[in-house]
């Protein structure tokens, strides 16, 4: 026992020494890089800073040196690298965040841009930067404005009030003011459920006279309503000071179910607003509204007939998004399968693809209608039906006999697609294998290649099933 204990001690000693050695090596390495920051050439400094950034939190103790150089180095390239390194090292927010805030006021736009982006990494710890970031939304440089907005959008509820304030300001019809409103609306959308408190304001803006304000409001409502986060997940209960949700009453506090109920009420308000926006005279707003409704699945069922109508008479982009939305409505919208199959013959290829994907979601339920429509030998419809069988896969096994007939079709494209669908369906019956084998010497190269692929797939399935037996 004594011997074992001594062995154990030796092992601990070796591990301990190794850790100390590695740490010491790291420490000296980092210090060495810090010296280069003081005396090196511009290229050496950039390389050293990049190395420090790669060390991530291991270079934490060098933050003071980096901040000093950020303030005093003459090269803006070096300073940009320092900001990136500080972002990656990530520690000591009490020192780093003020230094980055200082950099937000730099004369060089690339420094302002880098600093605004770097603050993202500090989350709520960068809350003190909100006023400066809001100020940067008016920056002369587009990249800086976008970076500030992106960071505000990621900071969470802390920035909601600031942005709502900007959206509420009356427009003096200058381009700058309008731009501010638009980008703040976009940022509120980026916050998702955390910006739930802004919903009434956004609904109001969704009927604004300016098309871009309406469009961004609809998109923001869609993002807020489509965010599945629940209050607990968004840190709402833990941080009552943060303004995320309208206070309905004292009973709600701490009651998760009632929060969910309140959220539901807000979502209905959003759906109602999006429904009104579908009829917007501008197609972009209409598109955004329909796309938004797709986020609400069954809750959007009342609008099903309207969507079918849009699917048949809207522009290609509206038809496509209407199909996506119908596909998301679940089994209560299964009665639209014939409309989806008809959409396979749409003249726009993206609409056709949306219909194929929607029918894939419907699975075996779509197969009878697809088989029925095979009777119409149509250059657009038939290949798309065959592609749909391939996309549905094994659930389309009810179509195997029809596919065997199409393998003999005079059109090589049909033969190839039927062979491929058989491979995807994966039912290697003797009849299927023999029919495919008979096409191995087809005159069309694509048919031959597809048949080889399908046979290979089916043989793999045969082997697998044989092994299982």
């Amino acid at each position, binding site marked *: 026992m004594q011997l074992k204990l001594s062995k154990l001690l030796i092992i601990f000693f070796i591990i301990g020494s190794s850790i100390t050695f590695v740490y010491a090596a790291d420490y000296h390495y980092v210090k060495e890089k810090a010296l280069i920051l003081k005396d090196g050439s511009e290229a050496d400094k950039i390389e050293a800073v990049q190395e420090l950034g790669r060390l991530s939190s291991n270079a934490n103790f060098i933050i003071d040196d980096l901040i000093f150089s950020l303030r005093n180095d003459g090269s803006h390239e070096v300073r940009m690298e320092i900001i990136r390194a500080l972002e990656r090292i990530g520690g000591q927010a009490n020192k780093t965040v003020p230094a980055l805030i200082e950099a937000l006021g730099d004369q060089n736009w690339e420094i302002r841009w880098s600093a605004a982006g770097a603050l993202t990494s500090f989350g709520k710890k960068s809350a003190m930067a909100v006023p400066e970031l809001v100020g940067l939304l008016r920056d002369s440089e587009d990249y800086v404005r976008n970076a500030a907005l992106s960071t505000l959008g990621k900071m969470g509820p802390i920035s909601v009030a600031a942005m709502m304030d900007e959206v509420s300001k009356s427009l003096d019809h200058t381009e700058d003011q309008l731009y501010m409103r638009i980008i703040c609306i976009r940022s509120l959308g980026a916050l998702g459920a955390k910006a739930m408190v802004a919903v009434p304001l956004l609904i109001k803006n969704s009927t604004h006279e300016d098309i871009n304000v309406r469009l961004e409001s609809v998109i923001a409502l869609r993002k807020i309503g489509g965010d599945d986060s629940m209050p607990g997940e968004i840190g709402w209960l833990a941080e009552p000071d943060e303004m995320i949700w309208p206070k309905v009453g004292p009973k709600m506090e701490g009651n998760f179910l009632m929060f969910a109920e309140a959220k539901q009420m807000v979502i209905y308000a959003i759906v109602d607003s999006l429904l009104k926006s579908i009829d917007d005279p501008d197609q972009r707003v209409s598109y955004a509204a329909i796309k938004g409704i797709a986020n609400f699945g069954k809750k959007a069922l009342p609008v099903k007939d309207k969507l079918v109508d849009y699917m048949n008479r809207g522009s290609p982009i509206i038809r496509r998004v209407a199909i996506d939305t119908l596909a998301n409505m679940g089994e209560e919208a299964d009665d639209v399968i014939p409309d989806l199959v008809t959409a396979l013959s749409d003249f726009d290829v*993206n609409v056709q693809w949306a219909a194929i994907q929607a029918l894939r979601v419907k699975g075996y339920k779509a197969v009878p209608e697809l088989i029925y429509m095979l009777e119409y030998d149509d250059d657009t419809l038939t290949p798309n039906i065959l592609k749909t069988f391939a996309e549905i896969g094994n659930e389309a096994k009810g179509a195997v006999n029809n596919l065997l007939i199409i393998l003999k079709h005079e059109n090589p494209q049909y033969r190839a697609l039927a062979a491929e669908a058989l491979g995807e369906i994966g039912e290697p019956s003797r009849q299927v294998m023999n029919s495919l084998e008979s096409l191995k010497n087809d005159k069309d190269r694509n048919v031959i290649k597809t048949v080889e692929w399908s046979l290979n797939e089916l043989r793999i399935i045969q082997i697998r099933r044989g092994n299982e037996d």
Partner: protein
Amino acid sequence: MKINLYHIIFLLVALFYNRNILAENIYVDLELVLAVDVSSSVDEDEYQLQIRGVGAAFRHPDVIAAIESTGGNGIAVAMVQWSDNEEQALVGGWHIIKDAADASEYARIIRRTPRIIAGGQTSIAGALSFSINEIKNNNIDSGRKVIDVSGDGRANNGIHPMNIRNLAIEDNITINGLVIINEEPFLDGYFERGVIGGRGAFMMVAEDYKDYAAMILQKLLREIGMPVS
């Protein structure tokens, strides 16, 4: 060391059995890497929408027509899945596409492509470095080399993509972007500034993964059909 007859015979035999040493590179009209984001922000449905979208695009008659009219040598395509700085994978190798049969075959391969990388952070620089390396070491030559990187988030891992983008430009590789703005609404500006670059570089924006198929189709048509913007 003396070189005797046995050494020479051994060398000749080795060369005979390993013809790649002697083989010349294949020449195509375009080398295209499709670098697909599979970081943690991309769920399984979104991954499926991406690969099915790519597969559908390669079946489109306009894409096939564009490939057939590039110059007769076809295009070489490869898909790279990527997430953080250590996670990239070339899936299914390089494929030469010259006609509809090749394109259909590639579409089938893509549709069956499993997700090799399960998630991770986002290193666009890692994706670009890996893709550049694949282009340089694929034994294929071409007049145009393009990396088509799609993603839904800023890099939060690895070095800034701008550094690698500049290396790509030095190697005459164009980087185009397909930005999915479902997570970060201002990502297009980030890609424009720090990711895309090179001769005729361009970027397209998809609102979400449901728009991916429509966008990748347009993008491929432009990439294959337009040598210079």
